[in-house]
């Protein structure tokens, strides 16, 4: 749990931003959004109206139907973001997206009000679901890869020539071997 608490530190800049720029009154009503459409927007199946990149390009989420891409880890995982900030905070963020790495993308391509509502609804739905252990899955793949490479090396290595003289001297070869 201590780790979980540490994770929240990531959101400190967000809190700071929220403090500086309180949410505008034009924020969308999350309750009116369609979580299914939100998921589609999140994954990029439905393009954002203004041409912004879909969230999944950087953010992972534990929501179902994302396949391997669900563990995208360029930005923080957004599964529990709703729990952390609540409806009001999420609405403000979706409206502005004033984070240093996101601003260049979304300043000129903001989410429409409808999109904000759908996205917010989707995030609300995924909240509470378990976060994907991204690292473990990677370790599993590495282990499998290593095992396959080792197996191949052993397979090819068995067929190679392993010294001719030494077996003769040790008496393991075809001849008489060393007489002691």
């Amino acid at each position, binding site marked *: 749990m201590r780790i979980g608490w540490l994770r929240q530190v990531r959101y400190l800049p967000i809190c700071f931003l929220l403090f500086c720029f309180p949410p505008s009154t034009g924020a969308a009503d999350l309750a009116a959004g369609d979580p299914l459409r939100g998921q589609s927007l999140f994954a990029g199946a439905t393009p954002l109206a203004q041409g912004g990149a879909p969230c999944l390009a950087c953010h992972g989420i534990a929501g179902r139907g994302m396949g391997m891409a669900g563990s995208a880890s360029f930005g923080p995982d957004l599964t529990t973001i709703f729990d952390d900030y609540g409806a009001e905070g999420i609405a403000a963020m979706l409206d502005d997206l004033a984070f240093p790495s996101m601003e260049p993308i979304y300043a000129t391509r903001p989410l429409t009000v409808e999109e904000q509502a759908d996205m917010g609804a989707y995030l609300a739905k995924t909240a509470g679901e378990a976060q994907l252990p991204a690292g473990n899955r990677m370790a599993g793949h590495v282990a499998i890869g290593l095992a396959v490479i080792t197996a191949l090396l052993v397979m*090819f290595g068995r*067929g*190679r*020539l*392993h*010294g*001719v*003289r*030494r077996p*003769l*001297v040790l008496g393991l*070869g*075809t*001849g*008489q*071997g*060393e*007489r002691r």
Partner: protein
Amino acid sequence: MNIRAQVSSVFHLDKCIGCHTCSIACKNLWTDRKGVEYMWWNNVETKPGTGYPTQWEDQEKYHGGWEKNGRRLQLRLGGRGGLLGNIFHNPRLPTMDDYYEPFTYRYGELISAPAGNDQPTARPVSMISGRPMEIQAGPNWDDDLSGSGIYAANDPGVLHLSPEQQAQMFAVERLVMFYLPRICNHCLNAACVAGCPSGAIYKRGKDGIVLINQDKCRGWRMCVSACPYKKTYYGWATGKSEKCVLCYPRLEAGEAPACFHSCVGRIRYLGVLLYDADRIETATMQDDKDLVAAQRQIILDPFDPQVQAEARKAGIPEQVVEAAQRSPVYLFVKKWQIALPLHPEFRTLPMLFYVPPLLPVVSEEHLGTQRLVDDYFTTLENARLPVQYLAGLFAGGNTEEIKAVYRKLMAVRIQRRRITVGDVSESEVAKARELGKVSAEEIEAIFRMTALTSIKQRIVIPPMLREQAIEAGMDPERYKQEMGFGSRRPPKRRW
């Protein structure tokens, strides 16, 4: 007919005393460098013995040379696909232990050791790690049958003999050996050339010397595996493979190769042969026992006017045809037929021929008997060195080839004995000549070529006509000014 010229050689094994002077001459001239300590372009092996690298003749292990695959000839190492599949992992290389770990001695300690009660010693140290080591192998570790229970007993040729013959070879009072000096055979159907994925190995058009282009070699080491004689070596400092160059810079200057020049026993003969390149393919497809005869057949008579005309048409210079007429190799291989290629069954058509050693065969049978000829020829099967063993070395298992050579060599010996000692009757000499299918004049010629020739008759170097080759490419004056300053393109891969 597609006539080409090949500088080839004959080694007369009866004359080899196993002094290794040839190896040292070669080592000092060519392989006295870092990373090539283990390379012996020329080495002298004791037979029976496992040779260098250990058991190089055993292609079940090393997969060198060619094999018949239906109606095609294929590298035993594998086809093109197989070679490509193994290109990053060549599974058929001799290990360092099969050569040996190169070593030197700390000679400095002999004079720098502090005063003490003991004699200072020079410890052997590895030339790879620099640490003291126990020497366990060397390029002629089994010299003079040392360790014969291990090395001679595991000679691949011996292992093919019947248990009785093996026992006969190793019976204490009959123990027998001879020396086998080896250099690159400069084969007509070289497996190293075929195995090279970089196309770096080539056979020189004018003299048939097989060379590795050091600029093109990428160090895949397929030639090391493909050569059944294990006569290409990987240079660990340059990352390129190297092999015997038959001292072509010396040949071009009209001098004998270093190993030929330094040979104490004068066993080495060199001369140019004309051969028909169109018949190489059929010659390599014969059965094992017919390979020697097939190889002899593609060598052409330089006195035949038709051959001369064809040679002229193929662009072979007149001087080279004249050199071919004076070639001692032609006499030994084609005219007298007493020199045989080493392991023709590898199907590379090696162009280095050996006169098999006679001495061990006769020593027991002729002592104190006047019926020497009868005894000898009826007991060839019981000779000290089994004929099967020699047939495995020089005739692809065909004992008749070996017997024919021995009958001729015996006739030479008996006729000369009649002249110098006089204890053999003329009828016995005549009988020996008849069995050997050789005339009295021919015997005298064989005797003279074997025993009484000068270096100019033993080593007939064809004119290399460098002036013509240079003129074709660049101004000879400029060539004279620019050559001899080393490579202007250093090898790119080093480590």
